[in-house]
């Protein structure tokens, strides 16, 4: 993310306490910020880098330079948020997340770069060398207090990231996080099909649309169902391939069923008795209460240790 270095420098000088204002020029600050920008440091971190240099040269703390009310220093720690809820930049937040991946890093100004995941979603993180946070270990979960949200552009796509800077504190976390990107396998009962199952229509962007939609559409086959383990309730999504395999109805057959009946909903009606009230084992990514299935199988004969359960029931 590029910044207006001159503007940042002017802003910074204006915020200086009077006693330092005469010792520091805009050009001087501009040069300091630019030196970080030249090293690939962007945005607020470059400004903070310049502040650190100033603070060293003038032998004054940030508080002394800018007065107590300086807004870049957090008043207490930022609130904990879910990664899935991060959607605007320049917010101070705290996270409880697992470091799921560490990426190669050949920049001196960056100590580590990788991926954080808190079960709701994943996000890229950048830890600046000057942040002084301890080195992360892949697979460990941490509390990260006071990180800054950023927008980054990749191949024309905007993605969110978080940056760890000198205000960031990191602690090992007691809690276990199950990463959202990790596939899980769950057995449960499929209790009902939700509307939008069977033969559906998608618009050019892949969004599911109803029959009133007037633009170009393409047919698709999918299932959206309530999946219940007795303890938790999920919405499971089965794509075309799995839907065809589990119901034995292909997209072409579904289209001809709908044509004969002049009604798309006959496809869902046909699928319901095949699936509802039965136990299945699903493998897939879990996002919130949604499971996106990569595998979906009807459960076979029960293989539980009934003797053991009987011992447990009799001895209670």
């Amino acid at each position, binding site marked *: 993310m590029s910044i207006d270095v001159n503007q940042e420098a002017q802003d910074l000088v204006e915020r200086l306490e009077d006693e330092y204002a005469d010792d520091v020029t805009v050009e001087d600050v501009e040069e300091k910020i630019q030196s970080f920008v030249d090293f690939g440091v962007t945005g607020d971190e470059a400004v903070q880098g310049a502040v650190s240099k100033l603070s060293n040269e003038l032998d004054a703390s940030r508080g002394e330079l800018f007065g107590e009310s300086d807004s870049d220093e957090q008043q207490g720690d930022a609130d904990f948020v879910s990664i899935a809820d991060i959607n605007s930049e320049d917010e101070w937040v705290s996270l409880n997340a697992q470091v799921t991946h560490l990426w190669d890093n050949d920049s001196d100004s960056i100590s580590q770069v990788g991926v954080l995941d808190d079960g709701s979603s994943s996000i890229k993180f950048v830890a600046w060398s000057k942040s002084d946070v301890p080195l992360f270990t892949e697979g460990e979960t941490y509390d990260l207090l006071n990180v800054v949200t950023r927008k980054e552009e990749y191949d024309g796509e905007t993605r969110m990231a978080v940056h760890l800077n000198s205000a960031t504190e990191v602690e090992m976390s007691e809690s276990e996080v199950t990463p959202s990107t990790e596939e899980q396998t769950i057995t449960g*009962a499929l*209790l*009902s099909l939700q509307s939008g199952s069977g033969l559906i229509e998608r618009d050019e*962007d*892949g*969004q*599911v649309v109803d029959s009133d939609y007037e633009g170009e559409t393409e047919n698709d086959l999918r299932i959206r169902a*309530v999946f*219940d*383990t*007795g*303890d*938790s*309730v999920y*919405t499971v*999504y089965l*794509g075309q391939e799995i839907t065809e395999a589990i119901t034995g109805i292909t997209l072409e057959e579904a289209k001809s069923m709908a044509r004969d009946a002049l009604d798309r909903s006959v496809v869902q009606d046909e699928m*319901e*008795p095949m699936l*509802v*009230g*039965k*136990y299945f084992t699903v493998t897939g990514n879990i*996002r*919130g*209460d*949604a499971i*996106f299935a990569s595998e979906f199988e009807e*459960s*076979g*004969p*029960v293989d*539980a240790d*009934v*003797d053991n*359960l*009987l011992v*447990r*029931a*009799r001895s*209670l």
Partner: protein
Amino acid sequence: MSESESNSSQSNRPSREQAVRLFAEELQQVVHEYTDGDGDYAPNYVLLPSGRNANRVFIIGTLMEVEDIGEDDEYWRATINDSTGNFMAYAGQYQEEAAATLSQIEPPEFVAVTGKVKTFETDEGDLLANIRPETFEIVDEDHRDRWVVETAEQTLDRLEAEPSEDIAALLEEQYGEDLDDVQDSVREAVVRALENLQENQED
């Protein structure tokens, strides 16, 4: 699957009540129904003697009998046995899907039923709990067996766990000194269901 679909599934609607697994014996021991919160849409619960509440249940058993007991409109009563006792399920015009299945089905069959628990009071003042089915489908024996094992496990989990303070207070208030006996009948029902499963598997 596109992003917007995953987002829409996480909208701010209240989360769906999970379907409690329980044997018929435990539903027959229910003596208390209550509403949690205010307003027309506040959910209804029955107090389960094993130590939790239930709004929705999921059962699998043998359909024993189906009868249309409606006077003008169709109103179906289904009797479903799980080897510990009978569940009663009632389906009328507002349980369209279940009623459609019940109008065609011929007992006996293994059936899977998901629905809300309702109660009514007899002339003698006893509370009878039954099921208002949302779905009613024929399944095979493997699914029935899996349900028996899962229901046994989850019922034992409930009996072994310490109930929440609210539930503990309700249990004390509703069952008093009978609580131990009632919980023992639920435990014995688990034993009966598992023994029955073992006998079927040996055949």
